[in-house]
């Protein structure tokens, strides 16, 4: 990798000034994907010494510093208590443990990788991101905006809840990227559903959620209808990992099983 300089930022604003100064100055999170995603940079800016590696429990939310490793998040008790522990479960499915020890939550969010197993979970969990300049936005809003290259993610806040959650990833072997991944949460029969790796980036299945949330009681027929709706609104396509048709089968099957699991 061609890199001229490595800088350990002393403050977030110093890091921010550096990325503003040159498009080839890049902030790195854990740097886990540098090897395959970056060929060249003028200055690599590390955030390791900014105290952003923490998990802090507040009254009604859990705040996580952007430089917290995925592994730390995965094994954290407070995180495990949210939405049936689906965030831990999703992280557990990402590559091997060695990568999860260096990859950070911030880097994973900033990367906007469409195959991310985290995104569907973050979409259904009531998550807020705090950027240095942009300020606080919901993860839902973040997914819809283009990749943010000129700001710095500082922390992620997970609202505490007593929702039930479901996460599913389907992949060829345990170490492969997902053919599909999905997450469901339900709080007092209010559903949130997100489907990712279709192979496009994860999205909330809003029509499906609306349909489900307007039903008094769910029976098999209604659940089937919800699954059909989810397939319809999900912009599913083919790539080397799976065909459009197979993704549709997977989404229908696991959405059905997921809904049944969280309403049990």
């Amino acid at each position, binding site marked *: *990798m*061609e*890199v*001229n*300089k*490595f800088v*350990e930022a002393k403050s977030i604003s110093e890091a921010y000034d550096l990325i503003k100064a040159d498009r080839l100055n890049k902030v*790195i999170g854990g*740097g*886990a*994907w*540098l*090897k*395959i995603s970056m060929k060249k*940079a003028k200055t*690599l800016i*590390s955030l*390791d010494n900014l105290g952003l590696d923490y998990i802090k429990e507040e009254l009604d939310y859990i705040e996580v510093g952007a430089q917290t490793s995925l*592994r730390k998040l995965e094994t954290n008790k407070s995180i495990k208590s949210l939405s049936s522990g689906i965030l831990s479960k999703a992280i*557990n499915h990402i*590559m*091997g*443990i*060695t*990568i999860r*020890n*260096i990859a950070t939550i911030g880097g994973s969010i900033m990367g906007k990788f469409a195959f991310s197993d985290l995104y569907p979970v973050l979409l259904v969990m009531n998550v807020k991101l705090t950027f240095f300049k942009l300020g606080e936005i919901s993860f839902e809003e973040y997914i819809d905006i283009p990749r943010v290259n000129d700001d710095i993610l500082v922390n992620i806040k997970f609202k505490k809840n007593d929702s039930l959650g479901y996460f599913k990833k389907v992949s060829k072997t*345990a*170490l492969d990227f997902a053919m599909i991944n999905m997450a469901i949460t339900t709080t007092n029969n209010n559903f949130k559903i997100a489907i990712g790796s279709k192979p496009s980036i994860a999205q909330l299945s809003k029509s499906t959620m609306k349909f489900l949330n307007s039903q008094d009681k769910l029976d098999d027929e209604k659940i089937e209808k919800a699954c059909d709706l989810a397939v319809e609104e999900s912009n599913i396509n083919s790539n080397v990992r799976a065909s459009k048709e197979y993704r549709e089968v997977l989404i229908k099957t696991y959405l059905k099983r997921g809904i049944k699991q969280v309403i049990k």
Partner: protein
Amino acid sequence: MKINLKINGISKILEVEPGEFLLDVLRRNNYLSVRRGCDNSSCGVCTVLFDNKPVPSCSLLAVKANNHEITTVEGIQEEANKLAKCFGEYGADQCGFCNPSMALTVYALKQENKNATDEEIKEYLVGNLCRCTGYVSQHKAIKKYLGEKNESS
């Protein structure tokens, strides 16, 4: 640029390029038990311990090791010896290209969770691929090694 780090408990000052990965730096400095298998952290062969946690040295910038501790299998010879004996007992050693990295990861697991279940062992080690053994004999050997620790602690 120069980095200060401890390798297997010994303080070192190493000259590295800002874009260099830790694996290349370690091999250049004669830590030859750390090996290259795949180039993109998919195989586990380049695993070292970074502040006692297993990481893929092929994908970790060398500068990130500044002021940290790196352990290679040379730093846990006694444990490697114990694990090797267990591997021998179950016929779990074949080509052995991955074995030093396996020793490091298994050792890290022992530190973190010495009562790991079958599933937890597999999950912890899933990133350490093996093309020779079919995994089952390895699994038995690793369980035996983790069990030995339980008895002594």
